């Protein structure tokens, strides 16, 4: 299932949280060889995780992390602004959020990436956002393309598969049906997951 959790709500789900940061280490440090720091437990957390970002997490039936991404508003501090300015001019816009650390657990199926993109889309459509910006590995371009929601590449550094890219996704309601189908989730269920986190009714962001 898709969970929408702010950083300060992660402690409610220690297994989910810990497996997410462990999977991030596996992907970014060990598989992609990015220069990211690991803590003593071998988990990857950076300074942006301390800014109380909004995580969109695919939780597996056993309660462990299946995939995740991280959102921060571009009006505050962003990775693009502080670390990847050479890729593209940093954006600053209330209706654009930055999406980083798109991560899949080892062996996660294609439906997980679709579900994460779907979660991102639900947030954007419900909150009236126009775009998302993000920094990602060039290999992900194919994944995004296959899911029917490729970003516009704003800039890249490096060659071929190993390049690091900055991209811009445009939100639109027409994207929803295809992502639902690929994620294998019905429209009602996706809406329920979103509502559970953001209301109607009581706002329980750790749910």
């Amino acid at each position, binding site marked *: 299932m898709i969970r929408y959790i702010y950083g300060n709500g992660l402690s409610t789900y220690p297994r989910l949280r810990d497996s997410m940061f462990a999977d991030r280490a596996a992907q970014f440090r060990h598989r992609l060889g990015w220069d990211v720091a690991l803590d003593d437990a071998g988990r990857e957390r950076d300074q942006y995780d301390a800014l109380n970002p909004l995580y969109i997490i695919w939780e597996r039936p056993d309660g462990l992390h299946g995939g995740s991404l991280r959102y921060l508003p571009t009006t505050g501090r962003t990775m693009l602004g502080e670390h990847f300015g050479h890729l593209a001019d940093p954006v600053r816009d209330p209706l654009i959020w930055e999406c980083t650390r798109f991560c899949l657990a080892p062996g996660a199926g294609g439906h997980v990436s679709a579900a994460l993109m779907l979660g991102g889309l639900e947030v954007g459509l419900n*909150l009236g956002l126009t775009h998302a910006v993000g920094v990602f590995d060039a290999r992900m371009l194919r994944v995004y393309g296959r899911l029917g929601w490729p970003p516009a590449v704003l800039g890249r550094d490096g060659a071929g598969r190993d390049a690091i890219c900055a991209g811009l996704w445009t939100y639109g309601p027409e994207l929803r049906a295809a992502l639902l189908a690929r994620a294998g989730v019905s429209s009602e269920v996706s809406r329920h997951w979103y509502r559970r986190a953001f209301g109607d009714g009581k*706002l329980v962001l750790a749910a």
Partner: protein
Amino acid sequence: MRQKREWFIERLQSTTTLDDLRAEIFRLRDAFEAEHLVYHSVNSIGEQYAALTYSDAWVSEYTTQDYARIDPVVQGCLRRFHPVDWKQLDWSPKPTRAFLGAAVDNGVGHQGYSVPIRGPSGQFALFTISHRATDEAWKTFRDAHLSDLILLAHFINQKALEIERGSDHIPVQKLSPREVDALTMLASGLNRAQAADTLAISEHTLRVYIESARFKLGASNTTHAVAKALAQGLLIL
């Protein structure tokens, strides 16, 4: 509404003082035909500024009663960054219902929508519109103005920061490499003994670094210092 939005942003451009800004907030309230608008900003060093249409009596009651402690809007929006309809908040505890009653008695609408804003270097603001519409009318109003409200909130914030120039662009206090090390260790969850051990210094020396960093950051305690250093991007975790 687009026209109203542009009209307002244009008016904002020529605003140069906080008094002008306050006057513009009243104008915008009338344009929206809403009960009240509130813009409230807290910068990275804890300084506050508000431009709002509430009555002085309500502001004074809110402050003396320290309603911010129980106000679900404050509690629900702090540290978050997505806009929140008041309906989504938990108003069920008794003190909270009493607070809402007091608010409505003071002319605050029972419908509301709040936009949290994250600005540069740890600045935070909240923009709120409140209304006295029926549930149905409110939903229509809210959906129609959602993105306008978000954009206006940020424009007002930008303007307020610009007018207050200086307060949010205080030169970032440089921490020494050791101070950064000490706070980084604490931020990553080590206790003092472990941190000192890792840095191969005594606990006493560690405390000196922490106190010195705390002083430079103007923080009230160690946790506060770590939080501030993180928010200002001084620590790499």
